[in-house]
């Protein structure tokens, strides 16, 4: 890598713009469908079932699940946005242009992950606005709320980017989100406090990284957390660091990009 040469900001902007344009072109898939599914969660869990559940940690059940639902969408959408963005040009072959362009790996990452993360953050805020229609919300730590939102969007977009590079087929592309991320999110305390779990399961749950994301995020809303906020933040940063390390290795070796 030549550090003397000027960075190619125009390329970053060009890729970023294409990625954002794709979201607006597929507005039904990228924005509207998550909003609809979130609304359904509120109807089912918030109103129908939630009305029979007592408060958790002093928070009405409908409001309690809002941070978890946002995280659920944020995680799955970050992964699918970023993985598709890099997998698709690989699949149709148009990646040749990216590989032959005067762009550094860092610029490629910033553009693709930046695009995917931006879409996720926008989506998260839309879900928040949707939720506000159903339940009374309060956000005690708005700065930390945004920080967790952005950090999670970036981390999981990076994770999605890795999956997109690793995947050789569309099936593999769906495999990780479907078989790993969705179960981890459902079991990560989106719909309950992990303190409600019986003994051993509570310990097992602590190995689920999503627990820390949701717990920290919920704390930024209501000031109540399953695990301490410092630990939540630390675990999120650890996961981010792991993703960065993997991406650095991919680019160093050209893994599944340049043979």
């Amino acid at each position, binding site marked *: 890598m030549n550090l003397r040469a000027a960075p*190619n900001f125009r390329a970053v902007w060009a890729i970023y713009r294409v990625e954002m344009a794709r979201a607006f072109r597929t507005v039904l898939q990228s924005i509207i469908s998550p909003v609809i599914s979130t609304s359904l969660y509120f109807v089912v869990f918030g109103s129908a079932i939630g009305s029979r559940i007592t408060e958790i940690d002093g928070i009405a059940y409908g409001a309690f699940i809002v941070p978890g639902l946002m995280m659920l969408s944020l995680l799955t959408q970050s992964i699918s946005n970023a993985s598709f963005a890099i997998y698709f040009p690989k699949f149709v072959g148009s990646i040749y*242009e990216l590989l032959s*362009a005067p762009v550094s790996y860092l610029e490629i990452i910033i553009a693709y992950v930046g695009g995917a993360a931006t879409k996720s953050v926008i989506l998260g805020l839309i879900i928040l606005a949707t939720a506000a229609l159903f339940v009374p919300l309060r956000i005690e730590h708005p700065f930390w709320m945004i920080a967790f939102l952005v950090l999670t969007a970036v981390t999981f977009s990076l994770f999605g980017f890795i999956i997109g590079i690793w995947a050789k087929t569309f099936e593999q592309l769906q495999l990780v989100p479907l078989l790993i991320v969705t179960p981890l999110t459902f079991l990560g305390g989106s719909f309950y406090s992990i303190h409600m779990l019986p003994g051993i399961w509570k310990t097992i749950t602590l190995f689920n990284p999503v627990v820390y994301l949701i717990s920290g995020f919920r704390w930024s809303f209501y000031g109540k957390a399953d695990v301490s906020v410092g630990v939540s933040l630390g675990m999120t940063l650890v996961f981010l660091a792991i993703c960065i390390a993997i991406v650095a290795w991919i680019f160093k070796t050209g893994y599944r990009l340049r043979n």
Partner: protein
Amino acid sequence: MSSIISISGVTKTYATGFKALKEINLDIERGEIFALLGPNGAGKTTLISIVCGIVNRSSGTVTVNGHDIGRDYRAARSLIGLVPQELTIDAFETVWATVNYSRGLFGKAPNKEFVEKVLRDLSLWDKKDSKAITLSGGMKRRLMIAKALSHEPRVLFLDEPTAGVDVELRQDMWAMVRRLREEGVTIILTTHYIEEAEAMADRVGVINKGEIILVEGKAELMRKLGRKQMNLELRAPLAAVPDSLSHYSLELSDDGNQLTYTYDNQSDRPGVASLIRDLEAAGVQFRDLETKNSSLEEIFVNLLRQEP
């Protein structure tokens, strides 16, 4: 320094152990049209992909206008436009968006006038708001070229540019290549259509089984390796070639009406004039005669045949 691309000692061995390139040394002169000929699987696309940064080389060095493609990849790549063999475009982008994207990707400031000119030159202007997926095959090919030209490259790679392309587009493309050459752009085209190299190229390189087996100016190549043929149409059919003419190795057509004499330009075989004298002496009369040069295609086939 007159060569714009300098390839030295480049090898490529794929993870499967397949040696795609053995040891390539090749210099491309500034401003020339260079045709890289070779059968399928000879290593043409691998070599181009290495120069363009799509495939990593196993060893060797490549410089583009003096910039090493590894150390100084930004400077090297920004000079190169590539039109790959396959039609690979993001199908859901419009023509206008995708060509401007290419320009941005290569770090060039937006320039609507220039992009418009590129699209007009390639008869794509009417289609600028169409999505790539709605274009015909020929139009998609034009779009690939427009993307490669959008960032004003100094070197243009055309990988099998006219494979499966209709006559009109082929002629448009040849005209475009000549125009670019006049502007000083160096053009490297790979092809297995020899007529294309014959019509366009200043120099020809032949690659086979991962090795460059020959690089020559086209004219020299034709002169050196070319053969001439003379066909004689006889007044009366012959049953056999007379013995007195046996050292010419003439071929007699099945109906006995035509004699064919094949001779190298450089060989010391007896020339045409002496054959005509000897024919007269043998009492063989002919109505008409024609001579022709062998095509690059015949040269090429002969070359590959000589390969072990």
